[in-house]
């Protein structure tokens, strides 16, 4: 069981190396981080490396758009693509379980996102910290470590969501459309909707809103990531925007991490269940 899972995971990861996904995502993450750190202070009239703490804030607000998109693009065709080229039928004829097959693929894709996040953001962080003489700040590395862990989890969340799409449709183009739809809803529409509710129920915000709002944000994994990274840092308070409402402290970092993990596990379980019942 484990041997089969590993074989499939290794193949997915090698595919990621072969088609340049790993190197491309890593490079995008690293350039993004370094670029933001260097050009971030441009608004105040200068360029030059901003502190790592400030960079994390702007990085998090960009990662919220970028990571889900990359994860969805990486994984949306994993099952439906094999179905179209006929290899899924072949794999089903092998002495392997469908759960192993899907979990093996997940392990491979998750590893791609993990390597890209850790190596991409990590090298950028070391570079930035060298220029800003912050290398020695343990507190800062703890915060950046949390950013990397949560960014990785965010990637896993959208890989799992992409799997739900991939096992549910019969054509790659349908899967691509749905993946973009999911991305659009989770990074834009959901927040707009919440904002609308907030404005429309202005009277209630002061009382009920403070209680309920943080929990509504848990319904969207990108908001969980945003909250976790923005409200945790002192310099972030000014940029936090909508999610700043959750800054009241209703949600601890532990709770937010647990929410991200749940957002990985639930779609993955749904995908495994649907895959097990799939007839082709």
């Amino acid at each position, binding site marked *: 069981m484990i*041997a*089969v899972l590993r*074989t*499939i995971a290794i*193949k997915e990861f090698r*595919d990621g190396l*072969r*088609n340049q996904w790993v190197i491309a995502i890593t490079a995008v993450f690293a350039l993004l981080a370094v670029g933001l750190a260097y050009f971030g202070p441009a608004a105040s009239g200068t360029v030059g490396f901003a502190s790592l703490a400030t960079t994390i804030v702007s990085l998090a607000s960009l990662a919220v758009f970028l990571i889900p998109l990359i994860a969805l693009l990486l994984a949306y065709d994993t099952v439906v693509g094999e179905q179209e*080229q*006929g*290899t899924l*039928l*072949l*794999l*089903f*004829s*092998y*002495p*392997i*379980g469908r759960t192993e097959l899907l979990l093996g693929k997940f392990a491979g894709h998750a590893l791609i996102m993990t390597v890209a996040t850790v190596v991409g953001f990590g090298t950028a962080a070391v570079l930035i910290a060298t220029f800003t003489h912050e290398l020695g700040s343990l507190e800062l590395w703890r915060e950046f470590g949390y950013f990397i862990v949560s960014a990785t989890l965010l990637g896993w969340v959208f890989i799992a969501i992409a799997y739900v799409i991939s096992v549910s449709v019969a054509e790659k183009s349908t899967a691509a459309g749905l993946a973009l739809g999911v991305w659009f809803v989770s990074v834009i529409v959901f927040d707009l909707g919440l904002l609308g509710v907030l404005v429309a129920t202005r009277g209630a915000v002061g009382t009920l809103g403070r209680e309920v709002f943080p929990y509504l944000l848990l319904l969207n994994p990108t908001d969980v990531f945003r909250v976790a990274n923005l409200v945790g840092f002192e310099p972030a308070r000014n940029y936090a925007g909508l999610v700043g409402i959750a800054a009241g402290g209703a949600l601890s970092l532990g709770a937010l991490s647990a929410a991200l993990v749940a957002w990985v596990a639930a779609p993955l379980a749904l995908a495994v269940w649907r895959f097990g019942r799939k*007839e*082709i």
Partner: protein
Amino acid sequence: MTALLKIDGLHKRYGEVRALADVTLDLPPGEVWGLLGHNGAGKTTLMKLALGILHPSAGRVEILGAAPRGRSGRIVRRAVGYLPEAAAFYGELSGREVLRYFQRLKDADPRQVEELLVEVDLAAAADRRVKTYSKGMRQRLGLAQALLGHPRLLLLDEPTVGLDPIATQRFYRTVRRHAAGGATVLLSSHVLPGIERHVDRVAILGGGRLLAAGTLEELRAAARLPVVIRLRGVRPGNGLDRFADRADITVQESAEGVEITAPAEHKLAVLRAAMGLPGLADVSVAPATLDEIYGRFVAAGGEAVT
């Protein structure tokens, strides 16, 4: 001998569409079976059910005495090799990488990869990407993949589509070698000419029902199709008159002699009579071809259905 693949009262419906209806078939070890039928006759569905990829609506499938689904499925599928119709494989991988991947998934002996590459004549192209392969090479890679782990049962779905005659011959030779080693082979085809030389028995599917199954001789007898006897150099009339007034025998003049169409059981009587005819230069006997037998059963099946 006990059946290696046992299919018992198998039904499969997709919603309102009936894909298979009451198919019962036993395949003993060491035989090569041809599964014949039009496109949509249920050949692929039958194979998917045998592999446990699909759930039967009713009836049972057993391979080596166990069901291909559920708990026993994994063990059963270890003993099965499958070549799906028009499998594309992973174009970015080399032939060797594809085989290695499947070898690991099947937990087969790694050394078998190199043996199979030689056996299907892909050793020279083993490091090329599969997307550069010709149709025939891809099909051979597919066969190699199906042979991993020395399966007891080989299910080959339209394996020779797109292959040239030489490649087809070689393909069947490899299949035959494995059948000689004790494997049971079920290969589907909608291309009939030539297949009879490569299979021991045929099963004919039509509209999801099993229309006939057996050796070619058995089916020929059951179909009650006439043989055609050609006598070169013979003129109609003299000596053949005694057949001319029989309803089941027709005598026709052809360019080189006469052509006698007679029921198979009168073949020897006609030949005996022909031997003494003046001018006889050559005799040829053409039994009903697989095409004709197939056509007969499909037509009869169609009548029975409507």
